[in-house]
């Protein structure tokens, strides 16, 4: 019993020394901005892939196939070692914020490919009659997409988009490559300095992600049922 109390005590001091919540907050920030950027980029890519123009379609397909099949780690290492250190492409004059921004760029370009595929699968749920009706009242490609197809496609894409968002949330840990002070990096530091409570430290971080990820899953499942177009 004593050893248990002792273990708990040393775990508590470890928690006090390091800012776990702060690190997880960085992950949430990374998730938010990357989700926003990849949603915009992914929508543009999806539009390109379903457009009648061959060159747009081709470019969209090429993008998705390249970035979906490249490991995120390579993209992240590329952003840091090549973009920042070798090519000196700085997005911000602030040293740390520059890394943060490049981490968002890396996460966004990778997940945009998955967002594009999610939206495309949403487009697949729109019945042919909807597009035909849009054509019949004289809408051309972009108005038809904006007014008729995409609103329904987004509703059908909520579930796969939610899955992408969850994957993105977990993948923000890869930003540790970009030396962004987020959860995975902090966990490594904490375990290195406090190996006596290694189990409790891992459990804390794992639980942190469970607490972030499970609600996203529940909300998107609820949303996708609520927003589903009744047909």
């Amino acid at each position, binding site marked *: 019993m004593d050893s248990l109390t002792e273990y708990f005590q040393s775990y508590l001091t470890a928690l006090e020394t390091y800012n776990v919540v702060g690190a997880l907050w960085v992950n949430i920030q990374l998730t938010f901005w990357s989700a926003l950027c990849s949603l915009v980029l992914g929508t543009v890519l999806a539009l390109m892939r*379903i*457009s*009648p*123009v061959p*060159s*747009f379609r081709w*470019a969209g397909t090429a993008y998705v196939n390249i970035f*979906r*099949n*490249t*490991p*995120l*780690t*390579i993209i992240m*290492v*590329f952003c840091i*070692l*090549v973009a920042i*250190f*070798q*090519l000196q492409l700085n997005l911000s004059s602030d040293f740390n914020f520059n890394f943060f921004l490049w981490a968002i760029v890396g996460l966004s370009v990778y*997940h945009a490919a*998955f967002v594009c595929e999610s939206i495309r699968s949403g*487009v*697949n749920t729109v019945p042919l009659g*909807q*597009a035909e009706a849009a*054509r019949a009242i004289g809408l051309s*490609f972009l108005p*038809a*997409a904006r007014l008729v197809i995409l609103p329904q496609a987004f509703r059908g894409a909520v*579930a796969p988009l*939610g*899955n*992408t968002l969850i*994957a993105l949330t*977990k*993948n923000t*840990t*890869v930003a*540790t490559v970009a030396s962004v002070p987020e*959860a*995975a990096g902090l966990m*490594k530091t904490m*375990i*290195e300095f406090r*190996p006596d409570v*290694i189990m409790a430290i*891992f459990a804390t*971080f*794992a639980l942190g*992600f*469970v607490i972030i*990820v*499970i609600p996203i*899953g*529940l909300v*998107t*499942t609820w949303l*996708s049922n609520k927003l589903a177009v009744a047909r």
Partner: protein
Amino acid sequence: MKIQQSVLFDAPGPKAQRRILATNVLGIILFLGAAAFVLKGLNDQGQLESELWTPFLTADVWQFTILPGLMNTFKAAAAAIVTSVLFGLLFGVGRLAANRAVRWICGIIVEFFRAVPVLLMMIFFWLLLGRLQIVEPADTPFFAVVLALTLYNGSVIAELVRSGVYGLPKGQREAGMAIGMTRGQSLRSIELPQALVAMLPSLISQFVVILKDSALGSIITYSELLRAMQIYGSAGPILQALTVAAVLFIIINFALSWVAQKLSGLLSSRTSGKTRPASAPTLVAKV
């Protein structure tokens, strides 16, 4: 592609065709312009110099950097594929068990490992194994990579098994019951074989994920392709080394995805399940 085209627009008339052609030309100019802009930027920085690229065509670099790296990537991915399929089968069947306690325990384990980032598990196992010293210190990163990949991807595969069995028509189980099989018998000899065939394409897509995620091993010093190329490139040609690594990954994953796609067409006649399941709302992604 065909379905999508017919969803959004019908056969264009002469006027629309001209407009599409004009936009197409504009698009080509735009994309070529963007490519030229990037290439010019790289050229200005001297990144297109041939001496930076030609080493990757020599036997030496392949023999001492690329192939050993690829071997380690394949080694970790292959081991993780085998163990995560076993893990997935075990827990997938566990989630279908008649016993409620077994079902719950398997469910909690599967949901937990799907929600925890792979990298977090990898770093944890790497440091834990290093501390416990139950494996050779040199092999610690390998085991950490395989363990973390197994727990995550095994959980995803468990979900595939479960949804594969759920996706079968109800009549399959009823037929089993009708000829006097128990629940377990019909699961083993009627439902699972069909579910496994139906999930094969998704399973191969998951192998792509395993292969990609094995690159996370570079973070915990596992000397797979990315790390080998990173070390080689640190002497200068880092852009080139990473590009070559990415291209290799893309080729391998592309081939795997292609096999998955072909299989889903081939297998649809061999099972009563759907080889290409509609994107069911699952809690955690398999991206």
